[in-house]
């Protein structure tokens, strides 16, 4: 049974980075993507690095020729160490979606963000 725990105030979550919080032993990143909030475990499934302390960014769209179309700005986090790109909403690794960062459900009550751990 997931327990609902207070994470942080909405105003504490920056637009271009995660708000890193501690819940007991767990380190989590709280992200704002568009209008919604999302939580990822601050542990990269690759090598255990501080995933959520990497830059929030976009990336290049897959194309059929040598062109660079920047897309998904603000929807991705690049792991702080090795730069693997993850979809903040789903936790999926872009190169191989079978590799997933752990996500947690989030709820917002007025200015308070809760994580369901």
């Amino acid at each position: 049974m997931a327990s609902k725990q207070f994470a942080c105030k909405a105003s504490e979550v920056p637009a271009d980075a995660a708000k890193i919080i501690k819940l007991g032993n767990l380190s989590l990143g709280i992200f704002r993507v568009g209008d919604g909030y999302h939580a990822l475990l601050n542990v990269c499934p690759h090598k255990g690095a501080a995933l959520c302390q990497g830059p929030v960014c976009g990336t290049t769209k897959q194309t059929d020729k040598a062109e660079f179309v920047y897309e998904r700005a603000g929807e991705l986090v690049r792991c702080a160490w090795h730069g693997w790109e993850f979809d903040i909403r789903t936790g999926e690794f872009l190169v191989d979606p079978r590799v997933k960062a752990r996500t947690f459900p989030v709820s917002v009550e007025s200015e308070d963000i809760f994580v369901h751990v």
Partner: protein
Amino acid sequence: MFIVDCDCHNYWCSATVLEPYMDGFFKDMFVRGEKTGPRGAFPHGHRPWFHPEGFSRHDVNPVEEDDNYAIMKEKHLDKYNIDVAILTGDEPIEASTLANAHYANALCRAYNDYMIDYWLPKDSRFWGSIIVAPQDPKLAAEEIRRIGSHPRIVQVLVSHGAQRPYGDPFYHPIYEACAEMGLPFAMHLGGQGGVNSTPIGAGPSTFFWETHAILPQSAMTHMASLIAQGVFEKWPSLKVVIIECGVAWVPSVLWRLDANYKALRKETPWLKRLPSEYFKTNIRMSTQPLEQPENVQHLWATLEAMDGENTLLFASDYPHWDYDDVTKLHIPPAWREKVLGLNALDVYRRIPRPAAIAAE
């Protein structure tokens, strides 16, 4: 067992055999112009390393031009029951070292006509490679289209010494022509000299044996470049054959490429798969000279990591000093049928399969 030798050198005693296949200005230049050696030498920018014994086997000593085939037939083709020999020429790939791409192209063109005219009719086991000078990819592409539909031509061949990595868009007209003619693109160790000034990273090494062992460096660059530049996305059915550049380095480079791609795929958004996956579908490695660790299991683990059962093609490199004997090729026994012949038939599609089946 059906045996395809993917690197069989058809020698000449003298490059003057090309004279009847040249004309005009370039014939004059070839006959009267300066060359790398006396009359009969093939014009090229020579590498700065000399083999202390000459790089041919010492039991292969042709005197007349026709001896070249007679000795190859006796000491290689018949002796080892070779079913198919892919002719890879010899000196002509060194045309890639010349600064004058027009002259280089004229030399390749003459060689190709000579090879079709003199060598291919000699033996039903022979299949030819079109040699092109990559310095001018448009001229190379013209040459590929000129003779690429010849029924006994099975690939396009260049030296692995080059002015830039082969994935560079500069070279793409060559792949366009290969794809159009349905021919694989092959690179063979060579072309270390002249305008190809960077065959060795960190600057020129000193001794021949030392250098020969590390020449695969530039093949690593070409492999990475072909994959990263998206050559196999543009031409998904193109096969690239890397000849005589060693084998055991392949997994380590693929591991490194995959690791970096996972971090920085956004730099090459045209790629849709891991680098190692492009390798497995599009690149083939010739075996010779297959690395010789003291414990063969060390090699076999490495070959397994590159899917060697499907990516290796047997090559002898007849008649060079590091010739591999097909009967002593140290690969896993269960792979022999594929590596010695069947894998090559997947690459060289013009060679009829029935011949392989009949040989079983």
